[in-house]
């Protein structure tokens, strides 16, 4: 997984403001609005499997986790509990099946794990409070939104997916302004 130092610093600087605004969420040492640092790592790894980096950026570079984190303090606040339960389901299932932390699994094993989760084959005992397939589908959908949706919501950084799909933006033929301020600098409130 690629990590980018500049991005890291960006999240750090952002965290101050968001912690003040939403004290109940992320915990004091978190660089995120809602997620703890560890939760974010899991979401980043998960989303990177959903949309892996190749010749074009993947979920990590496009800042998909930032999109999800941001929505969880906005319209997706209603999904907070599902995220908390689902993430702990992922952690416990991974410990039980592979005896390892999810983020420490190699890429292929992570993918196997997720395929099992997608078809509801992870040990049921860790998924009593939330259905594993429901959570898988939610994360899948939110990752796609963060990668393919408008950058104004904190994902699709610099229109990574539009560029990949060779869609001009904005839609004035002959002009491309793929660099978006929203994703990298100050987030637009919606």
């Amino acid at each position, binding site marked *: 997984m690629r990590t980018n130092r500049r991005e890291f610093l960006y999240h750090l600087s952002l965290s101050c403001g968001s912690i003040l605004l939403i004290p109940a969420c992320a915990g004091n040492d978190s660089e995120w609005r809602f997620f703890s640092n560890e939760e974010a790592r899991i979401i980043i790894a998960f989303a990177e*499997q*959903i*949309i*892996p980096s*190749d010749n*074009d950026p*993947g979920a990590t570079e496009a800042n998909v986790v930032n999109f999800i984190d941001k*929505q969880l303090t*906005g*319209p997706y606040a209603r999904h907070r509990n599902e995220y908390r339960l689902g993430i702990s389901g992922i952690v416990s299932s991974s410990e039980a099946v592979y005896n390892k932390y999810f983020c420490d699994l190699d890429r292929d094993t992570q*993918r196997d794990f*997720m395929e099992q989760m*997608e078809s509801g084959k992870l040990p049921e005992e860790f998924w009593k409070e939330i259905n594993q397939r429901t959570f898988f589908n939610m994360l*899948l*959908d939110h*990752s*796609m*939104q963060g990668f*393919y*949706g*408008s950058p*104004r*919501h904190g994902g699709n950084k610099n229109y990574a*997916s*539009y560029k*990949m*799909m*060779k*869609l*001009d933006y*904005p*839609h004035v*033929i002959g002009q491309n302004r793929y660099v978006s301020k929203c994703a990298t600098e100050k987030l637009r409130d*919606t």
Partner: protein
Amino acid sequence: MKNKHVNAVVIGAGAGGGVAAKELAFAGLSVVLFERGGWATYNDHDDDELISQRITVLGNAFGPDDIRHPRVAVNSDGSTQVLRASQGEYSNNAACVGSGTVSYGAMGWRFMEKDFKMKSTYGHVEGSTLDDWPITYHDLEPYYEKAEWEIGVSGKSGANPFEAPRKKEYPMPPFAYNKSANLLADAAIKLGLHPFPIPMLRNSVSYDGRPACYRMRSCVGFACPVNAKNGTHNTVIPRAIATGNCELRTNCQVAEIIIDEKGRATGVKYFDENNRGRIQKADIVIVAGAAIETARLLLNSKSNLFPDGAGNNNDWVGRNLQGHAYTGAFGLMNYDVYDDVGPGATLALSDFNHYNPGIVGGGVLCNEFTPMPYHFSKIRPPGAKRWGAEHKDFQRNQFKKLIQLIGPFQEIPNFESRVTVDTGIKDYWGIPVARLSGTRHNYDLTGCKFMSERAEEILKAAGAVYTWQSVGGRGRSGGQHQSGTARMGNDPKTSVTNRYGQVHDIDNLFIADGSLHVTNGGFNPVLTIMALGYWVSDYIIKNWNGSKFR
């Protein structure tokens, strides 16, 4: 402060209501036009796919909001769920000045003659309330023409050999085909079919002081950044206001129609923009809140003579909720067909609207609007990977190779697909909310399968190397094409209004929106709703003696 008595109150500044307000204001009546939403502009959400009126994962771009307007749905197992306005099952259209006409795809269809005579054409369908309209296509023809010219449609008369007879050419020439339309046109002609350009409520040339469309890829679900898409918000409503006779009151939620002891409507109760309960008295009340909200408002308007709601003494209000089952097929070419000539849908085939052996009705097929990137991430052949490298690769390599042929199948109405009110769940203002129950008629799936097979054949003929069907027709009806809940008819026992949209037994209460539809045609409905707005208004004006109705 008390509101001044006016001649007419119109509830809902959408397709039907916008037209009615304009017609009455031009005829010299004083009008108050109520709209629960506000004015919307492109800049509110620009081309943000996640908050549009098509993809609503982060909310409805053009209303209503998720907080104040819940609805309830009854599931097939009898359990109920409370719905947010941006959930698919909510069956939303919009809530703003212009309603769906701000963000629609702007296909401006006339129905066909047979669409008004479904029962005499096809006979009785078991378990359905399929019937003829009390009016014919020919009654409505002049009003279609008026809608085409006053609101603005681009198209070509005669291009569709199946179109119903029309007296006048469209006011603007049709839009040129995009690349996929050209391919499909050639293929269709080889198959003996009759392709033609979709009539569009968009400017192909500048019209009415507004510019021509510059063919963005994003259009449906969004407002137009250059004001080239024609809705009621940029045509009839501003004209109504300009007469000085029409006051538009935005952000006002109408709660109830007041019916007096003599069975006449005397006005409405509403909550103003500061959420204060108020009364507006009027000589005439016209309801145009779209099929679900119109039914809810009638049902919530209880009086001594109408204890179950206005016009509901025979239990027909809220019944026959219809929409359109969307159905068709997708294909992939082995070269790029995407040419960035938006918004994608330009070609139609009306060969399958009627005359399909063994099928009741049918529908139009179109080459569909360009999906935006997130929407496209869900368009995959059956069995394709939903995520990972393969999914991403498909997204990157197939987006510009996608070719589509999709359309609305004319639903077979049924009595149990309906809107009631839920007395347990109230909206922000304490008004009981709409409760949706029932499902589409079983028949719709049969019809949709038929349509999807035809669509797939044509895509193959156009050279698609891989094709798959997307078959609609299951589940609850309603949605953006919602209609039918206050059906017009000659027999008061089996309808809510007479042929002029006048509610049976309440002479000064009218309906002027999609609720009136007896059947919903195999076409997107808005031009028919606009035409009905003119038709109903014309009757009111002719029967208005200058100070009093009738």
